[in-house]
């Protein structure tokens, strides 16, 4: 019954930020329908995509996520009417910024999955996992996290130099 499992050299860590009302429920439906998808994804539940601060996405990348999925209700279907509309505007700007600082935007996916779309959840998660697996680990931010450990001291030569360079 079990399909032959493929061994991969690299298993990416995928983090999904989802809203409770649509995508979380859609993922539940995939479960009740016993659909199968890669186990790489970790789901963080939010009331609405409107609650998702871009900082969370940055932090997830820093903390080792190789791919991030943000998913909520379809446009017009947000449980809070307009939360996903604000989220969409916010993320459009954020995506551009992220591209500017050199993150491969293929690692960050936005989608709409409704409470009735268990199948779509499976597709989206599977696709992103496979895509990121092929891309390999996300190194840029993790390196930053390691390098930029600030000691907390204020009057260091590095900080003074950095400060002088901008004034």
């Amino acid at each position, binding site marked *: 019954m079990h399909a032959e499992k493929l061994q991969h050299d690299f298993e990416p860590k995928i983090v999904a930020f989802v809203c409770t009302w649509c995508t979380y429920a859609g993922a539940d439906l*995939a479960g009740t329908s016993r659909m199968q998808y890669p*186990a790489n994804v970790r789901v963080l539940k939010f009331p609405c995509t409107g609650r998702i601060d871009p900082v969370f996405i940055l932090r*997830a990348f820093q*903390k080792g*996520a190789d791919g991030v999925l943000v998913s909520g209700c379809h446009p017009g279907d947000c449980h809070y009417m307009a939360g996903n509309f604000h989220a969409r505007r*916010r993320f459009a700007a954020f995506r551009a910024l992220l591209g500017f600082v050199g993150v491969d935007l293929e690692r960050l996916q936005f989608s709409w999955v*409704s409470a009735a779309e268990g199948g779509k959840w499976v597709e989206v998660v599977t696709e992103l996992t496979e895509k990121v697996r092929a891309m390999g680990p996300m190194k840029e931010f993790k390196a930053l996290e390691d390098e930029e450990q600030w000691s907390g001291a204020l009057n260091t030569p590095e900080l003074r130099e950095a400060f002088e360079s901008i004034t």
Partner: protein
Amino acid sequence: MSRIGVFVCHCGENISRTVDVERVAKEAGDIPGVAFSCDYKYMCSDPGQNLLKKAVADNNLDGVLVAACSPRMHEKTFRKAASAAGLNPYLCEMGNIREHCSWVHEDREEATAKASDIVKLMVERVKKGKSLAPITVPVTKKALVIGGGIAGIQAALDIADAGHQVVMVEREPSIGGHMAQLSETFPTLDCSQCIMTPKMVDVANHPNITLYTFAEIEKVEGYIGNFQVTVRKKARSVDESKCTGCGVCMTKCPKKKIPNEFDQGHGMRTAIYVPFPQAVPNTPVIDRQNCTMFQSGKCGVCQKVCGPGAVDFEQQDTLIVEPVGAIVVATGFKLYSIERQPEDSPIQGYGEFGYGTIPDIIDGMTFERLASASGPTGGKILRPSDGKEPKQVVFIQCVGSRAREKGISYCSKVCCMYTAKHTMLYHHKVHDGQAYVFYMDARTPGKGYDEFWRRAVEEEEAVYIRGMVSRMYQRGDKIVVMGSDTLVGVQVEIEADLVVMATAVQAQDGADLLAQKLGISYDKYNFYSEAHAKLKPVECATAGIYLAGACQGPKDIPDTVSQASAAAAKVMTLFAKDQLERDPVVAKVNEKYCVGCLACKKVCPYGAVEEREIRDRQGNLVKVVASVNPGVCGGCGTCQATCPSKSVELDGYTDEQIMAMIEAL
């Protein structure tokens, strides 16, 4: 240091089959701050809940994580148990290791690792959780019922009989919906009008029901117990308070040849009209598109003949705001059309049946009108093209239903039964006629249903042919029906005088737009989604909104009425209390940091953010800050993600909680 308890559920074998629950519990025990962890066969059972309560007391726990099914399933259950053990319910969370893990992964190693991760994340969330006090809000004991078909009528009457006020909003000029159009109804063949019209009159006369017909929902604001609904009453061009319903206007109106929608376009009506003689209310409406007065400014006959002076060409749409505590959605269905559909539509028409251009190929509802004593033919079965009595009638089931290639894969549920009914009605009226039925399956679950179907086949001599029709075309005055009989394995060709198609039941036009106004979810066919397929079949996921009838999916009358009464019972349960406890997941402003930019106010979809002035003792304005009205806040958190100074925070989803989870990734 926190003292968290972790409880890992086997869910019988639903979780333990793929997840090593013992290992998950053991690993949970190693997380800093976890003071107790265990696994148990059924956490939601009585002994499971007692186990939780006992562990809280024995170990002095200050937070609880139950790793089991989806929180959408049992969060309430466990929060109640935690509360009984003296813990604040909001310090109890669930980790979803069933729907999001054991059911969707086969590999035991991977699934176990993921389950452990989920526990790890959620424990961090519990650690940063805060005790929250429930918010109580008053309940407006008045219900809104949208749609005046049998579903809406039943729900409205039940709620009104219980002593509560009801506002009913119906889009058409009369209530009644599809049931008012039916001739006789399965499985008992009683006359639809005879059982329907008294209920319609009851609605109109009920002291607790306010009826708005020719009206639509413009806007819905608020939340359970406290909705504000704006109703648009479209201009009827007739003053309802003056009209006596004498009908003189309709007899004098010179525009007499407008196809009547109620008769599926087979009877005629005037420009000022009531859709059918038993309409409720019996107040005419002017169809402005077809009225000479509105189109060319000449005529006005109805106004001249109207005794009480009720005709008002100047009438405008009016907006009425109604505060209500609960909403029942009962907007019913529409019938699929075989006509050519727009290119971009996911639903397709039937070119092989002539895209609806052959006059003697009709749908089931048209047949209902032909068979109805009050219909355009006075109850005689006469075909549309030449008014002759058809001697060979072919009925086709599942037109558009269970037809994935046409865009609809579901079963419309009522067609098997009403087609059997149609063959009987036909046989009763045309004794020397022959009915043929093309069908895929005969689905007759329901009390007395199979007996009814057998009667059609065995006593009323309908010939049932198992197979599909591949093509139909006009030859002379006959329709050639080409199909196959899959039981015998032969091609069949029948020369029919009339063809009746049981076309699919589809969601109402505009169902999606209404759902968006209400903030409820719907499936890909635009049928409204219930909160749980088995355990919450009449509730929407949105609190305070309930579903009744065919708007949720194809349904016959007995099922529709049961669901409507169930929805009414839910409304009455809500109205049994004066105060309602609501989820305290609301935003709060930290006034110390708030800079008064009011960015939050701009994005709040509920208008929950207000400006507040902070003054010193002398009354001098110190600063303006945002302030959230907890009764109005819906808890979406958009304000928090927007606030540039991080001064507004959503309880239950604080930055601290979310960051703690991300750190644990």
